[in-house]
């Protein structure tokens, strides 16, 4: 009934306009990546893959991609591992100061990345250590840990303790219970958390710009330094590759995990 009223149509049109606004920049990057001409943006003069080929031949960009992939993967592994442990503590145990500590672990979300960038860099300077890949890694773990914690905690709340207690009463020890009961039930959240931290790390620019060096450039940092000259089809092509990578990975993983869980049951 309401679906046909004038008000509802206006809401729908408004929503579509907001979507156009949100997606226009993303779509335009992908379209322009195929623009064959060197200067200017529009009009397009046909479709060509020359900028993708040029990217594939650019060693600095290939290196940046390797760095980003390694960094994202290690960040995801580390912060998921740490996050699962912390989530277990917060959901399965009672202890003094629980709420305060939980807020402390989630606080990086509310602290500006600029300040995080400055703080970690300053600390490193005090310790008289040079910027390195390790700095990027620990920085990204701090950035992504709150998201992993939120996602895993939300799922863990929904897993009844009865299952774990049943396993224990049948003689399983704490580690066996976790491995056989909790971990499999938690798997979707772990996967989601790991993927989310991978993309946050892979995409991050604000704090990374403080931590990266010429040897440890990530793809967003590379895009930033290329932008200093002006926007070019080459940047759009690099952007398009990144978009395809960071958008299809979670969609594919979601699809696979659904398929996988269907096979199992």
């Amino acid at each position: 009934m309401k679906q046909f009223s004038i008000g509802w149509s206006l809401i729908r049109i408004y929503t579509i306009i907001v979507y156009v606004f949100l997606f226009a920049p993303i779509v335009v990057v992908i379209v322009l990546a195929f623009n064959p001409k060197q200067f200017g943006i529009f009009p397009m003069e046909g479709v060509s893959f020359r900028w993708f080929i040029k990217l594939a031949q650019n060693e600095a960009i290939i290196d940046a991609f390797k760095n980003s992939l390694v960094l994202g993967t290690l960040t995801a592994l580390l912060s998921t591992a740490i996050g699962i442990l912390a989530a277990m503590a917060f959901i399965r145990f009672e202890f003094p100061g629980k709420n305060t500590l939980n807020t402390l672990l989630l606080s990086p979300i509310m602290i500006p990345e600029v300040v995080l960038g400055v703080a970690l860099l300053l600390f490193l300077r005090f310790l008289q250590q040079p910027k390195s890949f390790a700095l990027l890694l620990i920085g990204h773990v701090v950035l992504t840990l709150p998201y992993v914690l939120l996602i895993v905690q939300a799922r863990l709340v929904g897993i009844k303790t009865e299952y774990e207690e049943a396993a224990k009463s049948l003689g399983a020890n704490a580690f066996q219970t976790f491995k056989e009961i909790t971990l499999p039930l938690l798997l979707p959240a772990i996967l989601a958390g790991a993927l989310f931290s991978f993309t946050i790390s892979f995409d991050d620019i604000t704090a990374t710009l403080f931590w990266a060096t010429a040897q440890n450039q990530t793809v967003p940092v590379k895009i930033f330094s290329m932008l200093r000259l002006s926007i070019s089809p080459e940047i759009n092509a690099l952007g398009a590759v990144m978009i395809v990578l960071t958008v299809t990975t979670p969609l594919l993983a979601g699809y696979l995990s659904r398929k996988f869980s269907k096979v199992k049951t």
Partner: protein
Amino acid sequence: MRPKSWKPWALLAPSMSAVFLLLVIPLCFVVVYSFWLRAPSGADIPAFQFGNYAKFFEDFFYPKILIRTIRISFETVILCVFMGYIPAYFFYRSESRYKKAFLLLIMLPFWVSFIIRTMSWINIMGDSGLINHFLLKIGLIQSPISMLYNEFTVLMGLIMYLLPFMVLNIYVSLEGIDKSLLEAARCMGCTEWQAFREVTLPLSLPGVSAGCLLVFVLTAGTYLPPMILGGPGNEMIANLIFKRIVGTLDWPFGSAISVILLSLLFVIVWTYNRYLGINQIFKSLQGN
């Protein structure tokens, strides 16, 4: 079950040590450094003096940037509420089977790098960008109009980045409303609009305010849109920090500006938490 008190602490040890070592202690260093002196040679001298703060407030140059940051953050918050509420309401009421796909789409920008979304506005609003190309083609203008590098484009970049956060916050709080309340209001003779105004809107306000806080905090701490889409007059406080730390390597002054930004946000977050509670914000980020 007998509580074994050491167990949660063992589980928390890695995350707590990470946060203490990589967040709490470094933040203390920022505060300490903000009192240090900078020698003309560029070296940092340990000291306890308020010179860096005095420098910030000695004339109007820096406070003006601080006030601009607050103004732009408020503008972004208001624009995000107006642009975000209706789509969130649409998801809430929609009975379409594509509802899930629509919701997934609104999260999609989260997966696209901030720098790509920001720089792409040049593709759209640049001199040979999409809008100019279109206007030239239909003959409305004779030569391209320059639209970039002003506060408007900075706001475009900011909204593009922050709107999904606002939509999600509002949507989560709308989803939490008991639909039977709406039915009750309709049964009592309310029109659709009255039911919205009296029931849905007030009950969704926690989500709106949580979204506002998150958007404000994230806007006030960002430097990318002003850097890429703004002109010289559109710098925000984070740009200042970036310039001092990465550009001129003036660590003490850069730290002092960071402390000023952090205190501003702390006051806002603390006040918010005091009256409204901060947990609502984390609720909306769980579903991602």
